[in-house]
């Protein structure tokens, strides 16, 4: 029993790391650019296909392909911000929602057209290996994904707190008008924020590939959890999103284990509901940082 419980927590924590990469991206964009990016999951999907094709055509390990997926998605992020998002800033919520939602649909359907609905897998030496600790096991691919997800989150945190650009980003998140008066170029800051958020999505795509099949709809699986985590961890709060993602991973896993395999999400949404009822601005208490 205790073993089953411990294993459920391990499973939840590991997948929570992936949820974190996606949700940190969403919350970063929301915190800085002040829009909700509904297409975040599709950028994870693009990261997965980049990784798949590098592995399939050139035999490149998914972990090595992080060196491609991260910069490519960063550039895509800057371009999307510059050519699309910038045009709808200040136009109110509706155009922004429609824009990113349409982008999500567009990317999914283009992927369907280009890559078909087939599931693509990458098989690495460590894909099916596990570290066994007594009766417990820790899948190697997921452990690597978790460790790197935590590392990337840490790097982002350091970037936001220690570099001038990072500080400018936080300043723009706190008060865009004052930030502008202080000589911060909001468009540059927004572009970097969007790029960084998509870079994380790209990283998530590469890290998923050794154990999760790519398909045009793959991003949808992760984005729902990401949105819950973003709200739970206070909109715009990077640390909050990280903690909430890990909590949700564990809650989902425990739910499946002890409530029912079709009830994992019930536990997650119950958590969300209670949080919204008692701490409406999220666990971090309404502070975006």
């Amino acid at each position, binding site marked *: 029993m205790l073993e089953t419980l411990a294993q459920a927590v391990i*499973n939840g924590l590991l997948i929570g790391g992936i949820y974190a990469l996606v949700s940190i991206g969403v919350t970063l964009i929301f915190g800085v650019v002040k829009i909700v990016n509904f297409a975040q999951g599709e950028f994870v999907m693009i990261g997965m296909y980049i990784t798949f094709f590098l592995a399939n055509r050139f035999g490149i390990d998914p972990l090595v392909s992080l060196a491609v997926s991260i910069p490519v998605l960063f550039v895509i992020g800057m371009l999307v911000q510059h050519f699309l998002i910038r045009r709808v800033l200040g136009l109110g919520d509706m155009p922004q929602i429609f824009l990113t939602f349409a982008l999500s649909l567009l990317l999914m359907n283009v992927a369907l057209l280009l890559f078909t609905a087939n599931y693509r897998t990458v098989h690495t030496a460590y894909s099916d290996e596990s570290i066994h600790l007594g009766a417990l096991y820790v899948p190697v691919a997921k452990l690597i994904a978790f460790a790197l997800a935590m590392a990337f989150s840490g790097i982002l945190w350091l970037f936001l707190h220690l570099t001038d650009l990072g500080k400018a980003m936080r300043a723009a998140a706190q008060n865009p008008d004052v930030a502008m008066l202080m000589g911060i170029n909001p468009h540059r800051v927004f572009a970097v924020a969007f790029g960084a958020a998509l870079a994380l999505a790209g990283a998530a795509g590469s890290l998923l590939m050794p154990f999760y099949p790519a398909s045009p709809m793959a991003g949808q699986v992760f984005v729902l959890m990401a949105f819950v985590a973003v709200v739970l961890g206070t909109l715009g709060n990077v640390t909050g999103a990280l903690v909430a993602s890990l909590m949700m991973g564990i809650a989902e896993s425990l739910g499946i*284990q002890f409530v029912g395999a079709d009830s994992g999400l019930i536990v997650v949404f119950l958590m969300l509901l209670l949080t919204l009822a008692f701490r409406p601005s999220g666990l971090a208490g309404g502070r975006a940082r």
Partner: protein
Amino acid sequence: MKKTFAGIADPQSAAIEAGQSAAASDPKRFSRRDILTRSAGGVVAATAFGATPLRGYAAEPVNIGGLYPVTGSMAQIGQGCVNAAKLAVQMVNDAGGIKSLGGAKLNLIISDIQSDTTVTRTETDRVINGSKVSAIHGCYASALTLIASEVAERAKVPLITGSSSDQLNVNRRYTFTPFARASQFAQAQLQMARLVNEKPKVAVIFENTAFGTSTSNGLREKAPGEGVEIVLFEPYSAGFADASPLINKVKASGADMLFSVSYLNDLILIVRTIKQVGLKIGMNGGSGGFVIPDFYKTVGSLADGLQGVAHWNHDSDADAQKVNAVYQKMYGEFLFEYAGGLVAQTFMLADALERAASTDPQKVRNALAQLDVSSGYAAMCPGGKVKFGPDGKNIYGHPVGVQWQNGDLASVFPKEDARAPLMKT
């Protein structure tokens, strides 16, 4: 030669289109687009006219409709079905066509039903009314076939299908199902569990919509009668991010056999997670997406030893192996369940047409109802015999238990259909 079944449904409309595009543009000013449209139209028209035999003395071809999802979520499998259908028609025609109709060739009219129920309805209607077909076949997914069957029944055109839903045998007169029914699959799966262990403890996990629920309920109902104990009966929501919690549950149940009623994506994760956990458990993945070459391509050698059930397998007899060899050479993978059954179906239709000596759908339907074959391509199926009962069901139809063995799918159950010994895992 190949053009005769190129699947161009309506040569006239192609020609009209070509004519219109030429007329629409100003003849004096040629833009690059004009020239492209014109030449493209011309090519289409030429191909279309080429498709109709110009020899005046040849017998009128017999139109057969083939309705498959060539685009959309089932595109991959649908395309495989179309490939097999074309191959089968070519085989019939190369062997001299329908002799009682003066050597008439079969003309396959392919329609893309786009994995969509609404499109299936309109396309079935269009093919039947627009092309004077003698019979139709389709549609891979039972949900789509049920709709095509309704349309065919109303139009009084025979439909022959490999789809397994038992619904297809209820109040139908023009629908023929030569292969095992869904209700028979559950029983075969349970019996296979006993190949590994005399008193198997089975965990059933299933996705919680219509497909998973109905299949797993069938398993649960029949389990006691087959001497199988179900120790875990767990619905789950399809499309999960991680199979570990579910497999953790299977592990805790102490089952020695796992039945997974799942879509391909979940199945891939489940198979991989079992390996990661190091769980020693037999597995039966059922039918559909589990018994197509793509499954092995995505899962790799982890699939070896896994069991499934199918209504057709390519090793059943010499004829099946022969067709499989040809298909494998053309498409680089073995002839999968549904596509293989489709080849047999085309020969059943040819047999009926031969006896009907008519292209009239009603007469073809009556000849199909009288079908009784036990040799040749028309009889290549588990059991090797086809004869339809009043409900359109093959009275000899039963599923075959299969197992992945080194990338190939081998028939292992029941004894009379087994073509390879069960691989121990």
